[in-house]
């Protein structure tokens, strides 16, 4: 699962959950896949994204120590806490956003509903959003 997809996912489908966003992300294993950088697409996507969730995702550390070092060095300081204005002109930031949103593939981990604490596991890069009978 790419982090862009993570930014769209909610747990609203659970009965009684009002917002269900942002889900709490835990990364156990991830992979970096290089994809083509399309600045206009990233820019057009921005209004749909939630900046605090982007910032939050950039702060998530993989539990694996070795990956943690590289991951932190890459991103934690690159993404500002508040959405800057005129992102469209800031090519470097767009590039970093592209890397964060489209090149980081979460293979193993979990998503946690902020309201009910329900955990959705991520296996082989596929988040499992299936619910049980009593949650629908």
């Amino acid at each position, binding site marked *: *699962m*790419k982090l*862009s*997809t993570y*930014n*769209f*996912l*909610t*747990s*609203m*489908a659970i009965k009684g959950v009002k917002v269900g*966003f942002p889900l709490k992300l835990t990364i156990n294993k991830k992979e970096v896949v290089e*994809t083509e950088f*399309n600045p*206009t*697409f990233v820019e*057009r*996507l921005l209004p*749909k994204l*939630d900046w605090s969730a982007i910032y939050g995702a950039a702060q998530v550390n993989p539990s694996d120590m070795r990956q943690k070092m590289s991951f932190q060095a890459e991103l934690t300081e690159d993404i500002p806490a508040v959405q800057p204005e005129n992102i469209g002109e800031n090519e470097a930031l767009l590039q970093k956003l592209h890397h964060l949103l489209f090149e980081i593939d979460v293979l193993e981990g979990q998503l946690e509903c902020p309201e009910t604490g329900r955990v959705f596991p991520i296996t*082989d*890069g*596929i*988040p*499992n*959003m*299936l*619910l049980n*009978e009593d949650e*629908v």
Partner: protein
Amino acid sequence: MARRPEHSAPPEIFYNDDEAKKYSTNTRIIDIQIEMAERALELLALPDDDESRLILDIGCGSGLSGSVLEESEHMWIGIDISKAMLDIAVEREVAGDVILGDMGEGMPFKPGTFDGAISISALQWLCNADKSYHNPHKRLLKFFTTLFSCLTRTARAVFQFYPENSDQIEMVTSQAMKAGFYGGLVVDYPNSAKAKKYYLVLMTGGTAELPKALGTPEEERRVNYIKKRDACREARGKAPKKSRDWILAKKERRRRQGLDTRPDTKYTARKRSGKF
């Protein structure tokens, strides 16, 4: 008539490893799926400006329809209930992300996320109650309302599906309208048993004219008094075999069925001269 897969088992059981494998190896299945996905993308009527858009693929399976979206440079996110099918999608290294989820439980996405949604051969599964607590009407409504909210206000959703009977069509469209969608059914090649395909075209932003179905006669059928004499002649019987009219009528029938047919020209049914 062939048995419908919906009658044999729930989707997460029916699409097991064996069935999923067919969707990556069987070229006939692949061709049909891709053809339908291309038509669905056409019906989606995205603005013609070469920009990549974010499309939701409902019942994405092994990502065959997703690859059609990739070819048009769109980004997509897929959702499917069968883990075996999604594993194939991951194996094929499709560009879109896939999520394991049930349509009837609602779309787990933020409001206003997608610029469009397509779904190939998935909607009919929702018409069945596979578990004791399933209620098809409620599940359809939940699906359509959550889908409506996660689309932008200019988006369309196109579903290719295999309705079992007219009651199912009625149930699906009425729940979609209840959820706030506009639109209706487009039936391609209505005169052919094989090529006939149902597309439910739903719009979020007000009514618009439905796209034209393929393989339907250009003019609507009505009584034409000017050609009354021809009609009388027709009523007396079909044109003599091997005559030009007979050949034209046969070609017209093939066209209505969506089969490949040479265009009518002045040479159609021309007599051979007999000389070499």
